[in-house]
């Protein structure tokens, strides 16, 4: 037996023991996470269930209808230079959101390094990409509404397409919009150095810490994560 697997076995065991110890310690269970981070995670789990319910109800209506489901590939195609490219707008939106996730991850890094100007600028970039995403979604909605897609019917096929589309992308777009607003608020506080001077926040009157950037990042990456599932199940399936 070589030394390599033994050590990895040992770390696995001690990780497991650590978990039991954390949960049975009669005090805080999440020892590496502050209350703020733990609460954001728990909120995100509840939000996961909300989006899961939307996607599962979409699956149910799509499976149960006897009318053919409209082809997302054709509906979301755009004419570029006289050529019809399938699903191109959704692909651009996907790349846009991934880029915003990348800038957000780097903003967290710079915030912990106390490089507040860089962190604030990266958060502004994230907010910009988020706003661009919402803008493209608004374009997509108006295009579909113009073509006659309604929550109760559409000219392409099964009536349930419209209700699923507006419900799922609308709820996701709302999440992105809220994220953009909070990104701008926190970017402003970071830029001013509120977390260096321990200035009290306007809402809770607590002193903020740079950890808020990481917590904001958790929310933002979650919005990107939900889009991964919507992209796969609604647009590609």
């Amino acid at each position, binding site marked *: 037996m070589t030394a390599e697997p033994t050590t990895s076995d040992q770390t696995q065991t001690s990780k497991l023991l650590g978990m039991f110890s954390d949960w049975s310690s009669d005090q*805080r269970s999440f020892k590496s996470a502050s209350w703020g981070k733990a609460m954001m995670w*728990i909120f995100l789990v509840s939000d996961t269930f909300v989006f899961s319910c939307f996607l599962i109800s979409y699956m149910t209506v*799509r499976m149960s209808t*006897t009318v053919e489901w409209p082809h997302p590939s054709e509906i979301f195609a755009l004419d570029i230079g006289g050529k019809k490219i399938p*699903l191109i707008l959704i692909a651009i939106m996907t790349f846009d959101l991934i880029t915003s996730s990348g800038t957000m991850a780097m903003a967290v890094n710079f915030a912990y390094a106390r490089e507040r100007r860089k962190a604030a600028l990266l958060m502004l970039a994230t907010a910009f990409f988020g706003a661009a995403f919402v803008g493209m979604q608004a374009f997509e909605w108006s295009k579909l509404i113009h073509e006659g897609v309604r929550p109760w019917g559409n000219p392409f096929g099964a009536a349930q397409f419209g209700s699923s589309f507006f419900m799922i992308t609308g709820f996701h777009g709302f999440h992105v919009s809220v994220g953009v607003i909070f990104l701008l608020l926190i970017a402003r506080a970071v830029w001013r150095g509120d977390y260096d001077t321990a200035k009290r926040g306007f809402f809770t009157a607590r002193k903020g810490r740079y950890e808020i950037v990481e917590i904001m990042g958790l929310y933002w990456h979650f919005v990107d994560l939900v889009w*991964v*599932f919507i992209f796969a199940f609604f647009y590609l399936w």
Partner: protein
Amino acid sequence: MTATTDNTTHGPAHIAAAARPAAQAHGQQHPIKLYLLVWALLFVLSACSYLVDYFDFQGLLRWFLIVVFMLLKAGLIVAVFMHMAWERLALVVAILLPPLAVLVLMAMMAWEGDYTNYLRHFFFMAHS
């Protein structure tokens, strides 16, 4: 900080060592290079899932590829961007296990949807 470490000193030393919280003074800081790598990987994976549609793969192959690319992307985002890879197992388990219950609802609703489809065919389509 001291209050949280005191209680973990009972019991066998290796358990206490495993339960000791990692230093969190510096928060989650990881090399920018890693983030750029994950960013690039997410781009490639998204391009791959877009190509599934572009080349119009159909049937089982399409579903398989879509789900594989989706899970890889989701895993990268959660593990690296959301720092799950560096969190303690207690948090990882508390956050990632409960959403699996959704699979039960999914299975039940797939069964239900299939049955509704059958009924609609049987009662509404058969005589037309």
